[in-house]
């Protein structure tokens, strides 16, 4: 309630009269108990496996055998990490994940660069240059983005075999580039259509051609979407398992396949710490991108979630 004097002489401004004292405690209202209780359970479900993974990867095997799953390591050791990286056995070879890591890198970089280069040009052509048949092409792209890849797996094996690329990294790069193309083209098209058309028209009037407009107008204005597309492709290709196991041979298996083989190899005792360290190592690239790029990562994943 505002006192009459304060209203009459605003210059002196008497203190307001109203409720005093500390803010009422609402900490244990029923609503808050509900919220915190639910969130606690949710956190348990989502965080516990991650926590156990990290803790286990830092323990030595004798300590793991004692049980105490949830206890933090008494003695932190990085030996499991070293072993997972360089000497863990898959049943075929014993050089750990390092081989898979380099294979993944060799698959990842060319396919990301290729698919983004082609898809961005296509998206630009679709968005800005009206031409006959664009609608049909567009529909094919959407169908291509959503169709389940199971339907295409075996015929692609045949095609790659005919081309002499079956079992090679080049073949896998080709497959990843093509499969990423529909969704990436749609992503770029949608972004380019949101750029005001006046810019495009002004550039045309000034005499810029197809490539001039692409490199001088579109590219500099669309860095965020390039980052999103890159995140989509990097995480998608890095985490891929099916294509890797089908289209390459054991020497060239990507990291995820190598991880699965290390974990499922039946030689000797189960080394939980090495398995967990290997999982963490495999997840390191996408997790690093996640922590660096934040919101853009979410956009990239959300854009890629619909693809077939």
């Amino acid at each position, binding site marked *: 309630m505002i006192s009459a004097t304060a209203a009459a002489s605003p210059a002196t401004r008497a203190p307001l009269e109203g409720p005093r004292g500390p803010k009422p405690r609402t900490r244990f209202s029923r609503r808050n108990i509900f919220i915190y209780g*639910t*969130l606690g359970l*949710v*956190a348990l479900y989502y965080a516990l*496996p991650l926590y156990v*993974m990290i803790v286990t990867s830092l323990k030595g095997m004798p300590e*793991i*055998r004692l*049980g105490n*799953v949830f206890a933090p390591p008494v003695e932190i050791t990085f030996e499991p990490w070293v072993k997972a990286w360089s000497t863990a056995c898959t049943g075929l070879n014993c050089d750990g994940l390092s081989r898979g890591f380099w294979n993944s890198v*060799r698959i990842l*970089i*060319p396919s990301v*660069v*290729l698919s983004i*280069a*082609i*898809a961005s040009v*296509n998206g630009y*052509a*679709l968005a800005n*240059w009206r*031409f006959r048949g664009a609608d049909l092409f567009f*529909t094919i792209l959407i169908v*291509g983005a*959503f*169709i*389940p890849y*199971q*339907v*295409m*797996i*075996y*015929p*692609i094996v*045949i095609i790659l075999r005919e081309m002499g690329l079956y079992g090679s990294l080049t073949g896998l790069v080709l497959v990843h*580039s*093509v*499969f990423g*193309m*529909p969704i990436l083209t*749609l992503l770029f098209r*949608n972004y380019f259509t949101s750029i005001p058309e006046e810019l495009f028209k002004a550039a045309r009037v000034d005499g810029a051609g197809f*490539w001039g407009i692409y490199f001088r107008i579109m590219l500099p204005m669309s860095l965020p979407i390039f980052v999103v597309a890159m995140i989509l492709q990097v*995480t998608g290709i890095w*985490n*891929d*398992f*099916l294509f890797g196991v*089908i289209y390459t041979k054991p020497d060239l298996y990507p990291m*995820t396949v190598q991880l*699965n083989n290390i974990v*499922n190899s039946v030689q000797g005792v189960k080394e*939980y710490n090495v398995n*967990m360290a290997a999982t963490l190592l495999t*997840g390191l690239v996408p*997790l690093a991108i*996640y922590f660096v790029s934040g919101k853009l990562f979410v956009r990239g*994943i959300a854009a890629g*979630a619909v693809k077939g």
Partner: protein
Amino acid sequence: MHPAMQGLLTIVIGVGGCIGYFYFSNMLLDKVIFPARGPNIGRNINRANLIRPWLFLFPAVFALGLYLAYPVVETLRLSVTDRTQDGAFVGLANYSQMFSEPKFWEAVRNNFLWLLIVPAAATGFGLLAAQLTDRISWGNLAKSLIFMPMAISFVGAGVIWKLVYEARPADVEQIGVLNAIYLWLGGTEPQTWLTLPLWNNFFLMVVLVWIQTGFAMVILSAALRGIPEETIEAAIIDGANPFQIFFKIKVPQIMGTIVVVWTTITLVVLKIFDIVFAMTNGQWETQVLANYMYDKLFRSNDWGVGSASAMIIMLMVTPILVWNVYNARKEMR
């Protein structure tokens, strides 16, 4: 050669090839076929501009045709031929053979179980998490935690959850998280969770829900933020309680987004492969269609039945596919 160098070389060849193609085909069009000079200069420029987009789309059209369109037709063809008879046409024999296998029906049953439970659970938890994290200070931390599994591969998630379900003989200390909790809560003896028929399906589903909740959460959280404040204020003034506000005001307004999230996760579920492959490989009655197909194609080398099962997956996806295409076209006009 060092792998990095090899990768670099592939990029240079790939990108260089593309740029070269774009550049020279463009030059050919402008300088040779429709030169921008002479008596027909106006007509030539118009024609060149009509053709140019197709020139640049050609690599994509070609690749999509070869790798997307042709394989679909080819799979359909393979599903009605037989390997042992040198690829002779056998009609629907592959399909009838498949329908007589109990393992196939097990896969169909499990796929339907996955279909019923995972999208609902992931969307539900995602909605709950989106709503609850919105109003607390450490909400963003919780969000990034829940989203983190999205960054890990399905295989990685499978490995982590294998540790959760790990079981050891009753006389030694348990290492598996679930058994540790189970015994602590008063369970009598450790269970081998992944070999309990029917139940093990649900244990596998938990892994996918764990991964997909983050996706549902971020999309739905954005949708919740987009709800006009006035509608909620009006409901508060009218005396609605938080549950009424949530279910009668907020949820109906984001129904469209909920459907999109639901169908997206449904598409993931229909093709679920990695998790089952890495954790049980379809043993102990956990087979799913995609893994069944992999078994047929690459273990039994029977491409007839394998292609037939691929067509079944295609058939199950088609309704959502059509709906998605319809919506995308409507939206992107």
